[in-house]
């Protein structure tokens, strides 16, 4: 992977030099919908994607482009398209590659909305998905059919915290000539770069650790540029003739960046899930401190794991860095700096005790997000995954008593005190039951 500068330097500088006109050191927010063409020649060239530049913010924008270029450089990708959310990113990838009659192989332990999109929405458009255990390599290989156009998984599953063996899955995908798309939201490029392990497409919800402050929704697709889309029969949307742009083949004209060119030319044009320039700016501020925050997230996670391990109110505890986690070995290999800052645990006393815990912590926030600088908690069974059937919940590794904890950057002693209050309330419920 070609990198002239190290991660921390790229986090601050990639995609931007001081503004030529004003000298602005910070990335300016280009709050504009459109851009005045220099002449008709330039206008035509921009519309036809012959040269780089901006014509309309639904397609691209200078502030958003800075974010995209920074993300591409941090993840080692050839190009990136940022969009309105992580779910928009996933939708853009699926629709860029797949058409009616195509097939996807996906992890059965993913974020509920990812599963919903593939299981319920895409099927209405004739795109079927086989859900597989992301840790069963044999099952993944067997599930790949001649019409499989995409294999999809998460590095760290949400909320089950399984760790996908990305290097081995990537080998299978390469052998079968199917692109591997990986949702890397929970690890961020600071902890692990899927492209360096053979993945072809990386998806991020920028809303989480990358933005890091719970203030802006955003998503991104990073193109590894390491997949051969040349099979026109199999990948007609990338290597066949495009309906516009004089019928070009993205693969022939844009090569390693063919996928992102397709997404920009079709997905951003026709669906329009654009990120706002303001949100791009907020997310860029987050990226500037990504490595500092991730170090502290990991440090706090280690301490809170020790605390929870010793706590009598906790019935079970799961995190890939724990030796008893089934994916600990692969986690140590591909996530050597730490396996993220999400912890899941059960509270003695079941569902009601879990509810009491959540309602009695004050510093930690009960809400539907992860990866904020602040510590967050949720009870997935009654919130994020409430729409899943019991069977689907079980497949995702969920139980009634499960709490998902997103460890923040507070002084960990304060979080421990806060949790003690919650545990005390939970214990009352638990003792009433016994």
């Amino acid at each position, binding site marked *: 992977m070609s990198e002239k500068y190290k991660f921390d330097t790229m986090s601050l500088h990639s995609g931007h030099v001081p503004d030529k006109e004003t000298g602005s050191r910070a990335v300016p927010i280009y709050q504009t919908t459109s851009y005045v063409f220099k002449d008709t020649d330039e206008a035509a060239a921009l519309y036809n994607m012959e040269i780089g*530049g901006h014509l309309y913010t639904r397609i691209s924008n200078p502030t958003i482009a800075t974010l995209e270029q920074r993300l591409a450089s941090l993840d080692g990708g050839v190009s990136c398209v940022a969009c309105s959310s992580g779910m928009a990113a996933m939708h853009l990838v699926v629709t860029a590659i797949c058409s009616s009659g195509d097939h996807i192989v996906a992890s059965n332990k993913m974020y509920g909305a990812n599963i919903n999109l593939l299981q319920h929405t895409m099927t209405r458009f004739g795109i079927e998905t086989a859900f597989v255990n992301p840790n069963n390599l044999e099952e993944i290989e067997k599930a790949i059919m001649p019409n499989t156009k995409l294999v999809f998984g998460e590095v760290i599953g949400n909320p089950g915290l399984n760790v996908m063996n990305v290097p081995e899955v990537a080998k299978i995908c390469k052998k079968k000539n199917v692109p591997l798309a990986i949702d890397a939201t929970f690890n961020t490029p600071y902890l692990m770069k899927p492209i360096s392990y053979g993945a072809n497409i990386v998806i991020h919800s920028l809303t989480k650790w990358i933005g890091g402050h719970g203030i802006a929704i955003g998503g991104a697709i990073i193109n590894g540029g390491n997949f051969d889309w040349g099979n026109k029969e199999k990948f007609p949307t990338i290597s066949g003739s495009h309906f516009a*742009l004089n019928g070009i083949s993205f693969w022939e004209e844009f090569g390693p960046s063919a996928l992102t060119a397709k997404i920009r030319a079709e997905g951003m044009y026709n669906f329009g899930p654009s990120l706002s320039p303001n949100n791009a700016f907020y997310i860029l501020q987050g990226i500037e401190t990504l490595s500092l925050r991730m170090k502290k997230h990991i440090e706090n996670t280690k301490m809170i794991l020790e605390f929870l391990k010793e706590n009598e109110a906790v019935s079970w505890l799961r995190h890939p860095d724990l030796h008893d986690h089934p994916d600990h070995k692969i986690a140590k290999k591909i996530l050597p700096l730490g396996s993220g800052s999400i912890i899941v645990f059960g509270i003695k006393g079941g569902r009601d005790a879990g509810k009491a815990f959540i309602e009695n912590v004050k510093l930690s926030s009960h809400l539907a997000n992860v990866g904020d600088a602040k510590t967050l908690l949720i009870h997935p069974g009654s919130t994020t995954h409430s729409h899943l059937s019991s069977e689907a919940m079980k497949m995702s590794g969920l139980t009634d008593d499960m709490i998902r904890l997103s460890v923040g950057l507070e002084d960990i002693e304060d979080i421990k005190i806060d949790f003690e209050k919650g545990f005390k309330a939970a214990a009352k419920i638990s003792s009433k039951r016994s």
Partner: protein
Amino acid sequence: MYTDFKGNKVYFSTGGINLVNDKETLCFVHGAGQNHYSFTQQIRYFVSQGYNVVAPDFPGHGFSEGNQTTSIEEDMLWLSELLAFLKIEKATFIGHSQGCLTILELAEKKPELVRGLVFVAGAMSIPVNDFLIDTSIDNPEKAYDLMVTWGQDNYGSFSISDWPGHNHLAEGNAVMKMNDSSVLTTDLKSCNLYDNGKQAASKIKINCLAVLAKFDMMTPLKKGLQMVENIKQCDYKILECGHFLPIEKPKELNALIKNYLNTLK
């Protein structure tokens, strides 16, 4: 566009458009370890400007199959034969890096084919240090990294791009990985061996353009300027970027080429 040429599948980009007989042709000639993607932001632009564009992948590069040519002289012959095969009688040649050596040789040996010449980040000779050649043999991917990193100034190294979302370093690396792994070594050796550049340059009788890069670490600016001095009529411009000028400064390069083409009319 694919064709069967000399028993091999050969690819040449035309910007996705069929060649038209009565249009002037521009032929883009890529450099060492590269392919037609070096000119992504030139090919379709000049098609829209009304030109036929031919940007071949040399054998073993990009989508073209066949045994690689092993000298600049062979590159020149292969290119001239391909153009004859495509029934192109005359063209303006735009070479980048090693491609400049190829078009210098072409200008001397096949002047009847040449309407105009544009040298991009070029020189009359491109000696390559042993370290890079050895690395390209022992560890091609390391050699790609070195070339791509040396090939960009800070602007490119920080993924600053007019092309939204693009990371030149990784993209350059990915383009080089598309070729057979032995391609770069052979190309570098071809560059190293070529010693006819000065004579070829001195024989050019048409007006040429050289677009040079101020921070070029592959073909240093002073070597580019020596080439300019040796060509009877060669305008030149220096852009503030690194060796991969067509990617780093596409708009500026396109404008310079466009102006030059107007002088040929």
